[in-house]
């Protein structure tokens, strides 16, 4: 181990302080870009909670993001809620959805769960288009103008930190060990007396809360949402790639993946729009082939870093 825990914690505190002060010196774009980076950290981290730890790959995680976005936006636009409680309600809505969906679907094995989640996303998109009175249908929902980028920046940062802390707490707990046992061998886990259905459901609920909250925050920040922009398959794929790139099943892997991919997209790829998609595909292929455990997984093996990193 190359870093003492104390140095690590000090580093984290300094980083947190720097990020807390950033809006004072940052430009409007800087704050907004960081805000979206936090969003991706929370999304990739949440996906990691269910798919990285239990091995149940969710191909529809953007459904929770979209559900949170719509729940939050409807409460803001139709019921006049302030955005902060609306964001928490977005998280709650996503959890309720996860409960309803997870209970039957987590009993599905292998690719069937992934496909069920994919279907869920399409169903939700169709439903939001259908219930026009509430959601505005395909015309979308336009929120009252509000310039709250800085407070939303802090809320988004807390969401990202919360998801990462939650991951750490889970990975270092018996609960986390049980989840990873399910991932390695579900039958063996069952034989050892782990209530696998219940554990998977808990992990699933925890993995839905983060996307719900950041969905509502993103909706408030953007001021306009429509079904196709909050339920795109591309968002699920991006969070999967971020978590895989950084290292699935680790605490800091999704964070690392989100930072590297988001920053490189902003700085390099924005200037080469046509190369961008090609590069993204190439990265997926390279990660899967060359380092299936991601950057952090590779470092953990090579330098014998702790599993809890």
């Amino acid at each position: 181990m190359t870093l003492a825990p104390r140095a690590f914690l000090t580093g984290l505190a300094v980083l947190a302080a720097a990020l807390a002060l950033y809006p004072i010196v940052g430009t409007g774009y800087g704050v907004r870009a960081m805000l979206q980076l936090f969003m991706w950290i929370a999304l990739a981290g949440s996906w990691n909670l269910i798919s990285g730890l239990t091995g149940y790959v969710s191909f529809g995680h953007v459904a929770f993001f979209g559900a949170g976005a719509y729940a939050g936006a409807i409460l803001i636009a139709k019921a006049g809620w302030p955005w902060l409680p609306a964001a928490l309600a977005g998280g709650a809505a996503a959890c309720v959805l996860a409960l309803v969906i997870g209970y039957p679907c987590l009993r599905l094995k292998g690719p069937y769960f992934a496909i069920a989640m994919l279907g869920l996303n399409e169903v939700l998109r169709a439903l939001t288009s259908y219930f026009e009175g509430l959601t505005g249908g395909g015309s979308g929902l336009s929120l009252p103008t509000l310039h709250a980028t800085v407070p939303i920046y802090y809320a988004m940062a807390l969401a990202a930190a919360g998801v990462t802390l939650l991951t750490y707490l889970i990975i270092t707990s018996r609960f986390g060990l049980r989840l990873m046992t399910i991932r390695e061998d579900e039958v063996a886990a069952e034989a050892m007396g782990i209530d696998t259905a219940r554990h998977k459901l808990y992990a699933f609920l925890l993995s839905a809360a983060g996307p719900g909250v950041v969905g509502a925050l993103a909706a408030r920040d953007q001021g306009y949402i429509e079904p196709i922009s909050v339920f795109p398959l591309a968002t699920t794929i991006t969070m999967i790639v971020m978590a895989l790139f950084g290292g699935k099943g680790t605490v800091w892997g999704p964070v690392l993946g989100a930072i590297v991919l988001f920053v490189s997209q902003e700085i390099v790829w924005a200037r080469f729009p046509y190369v961008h998609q090609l590069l993204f595909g190439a990265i997926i292929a390279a990660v899967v082939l060359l380092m299936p455990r991601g950057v952090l997984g590779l470092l953990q093996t090579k330098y014998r870093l702790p599993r809890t990193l």
Partner: protein
Amino acid sequence: MTLKALGALIAATGVLVASLPAGAQGPIRIGASLSLTGTYAKLGNYMHEGYKLCAKELNARGGLLGRKVEFVVYDDQSMPATGVRLYEKLITEDKVEAVMGPYSSPITEAVVNVTEKYKKVAVSPLAATTSIFKRPPDKKRYYIFMIISPAEVYLEGLIDMAAKRGLKTVAILNEDTLFAKAAANGAAEIARKKGLQVVFQEGYPKGNQDFSAILTKIRAANPDVVAGSTYFDDAVAITRQMKELNLNPKMYGLTVGGDLPEFYTLLKQNAEYIYGATQWEKALPYPGNKEFNEAYTKEFGREPVYHSAAGYAGCQVYVEAVKRAGTLDADKVRDVLLKLEMKTAFGDYRVDQDGFQIAHKMVMTQWQDGKKVIVWPDELATGKPRYPMPAWNQR
């Protein structure tokens, strides 16, 4: 180790984020995000070429306020969230002195919150949805200006021609998105006003490919007129499936897609008799239109479509307003834009107090022997409509 790497990354981001501002007397940089990839890529690229040609011609004539003009364009991947971030970047990082609108209504609806926040005039050449401009007083927007006719009147020509022929019933189908739905609702309202009965109206999700269920229902309603509020891929698919199902109305018209050259290339004789609504045609006798066509074809090796012309004209309208105001100051340019009356290669420009377009005219075309003929309105028509549409197997 990892933490160090992380720190280095964040530091690197900081350095790159604090990029260089523009020199004071360099070129005037105009920022825009456009859909160069993603679902709107085809049309976004046409629009981009319109911007480019406008800047090129302007610079050849000495530029604007004695300075050259340069577009700074990023790709928003057809996603509103990306567009929002990019306008924030253009204004606060790149410090562009002016901006122009993005492609499509949904993206404009999202990014206009940013341009309003920084008090930037945003002439938005391809935002056609009324609700972006017409807002309650407490949500009013001040710096956004419309160039094209609103979505609601896209199919006015088709309905008007049908009413004049004494047709009675119309069926409307639309992609369920902001613009397409507004166009469908507008068509339904015009139809009712003109005494036609709307016997069917239904939306389908974006990206839909199988229209057999919806077309079977339309066939059961047996309308005189079928009107589709479409983009492009759906317009082609609907036409093919109408033929397969032998759905044979007397008139059949489309909003976007039916007027593009690719529509005929893909459908050949099946595109005949189909009406397309368009904001602009190359045959229209607008001042400078012929020259625009020639210059565009020479520059980009393909013919312009209305999205190109709207981008080109939107840029010209903004430039004219800056010239008259003598400054890039947003409030002064806004005052000029509110009063400006202008004729471009794209047609007339005049807006009301909400920046909402009131002078520009839509036209209706019909495919006749592989050529697009303008058949509506009468004063701009280059030919007579062929009526009625024959059975699909008799062409």
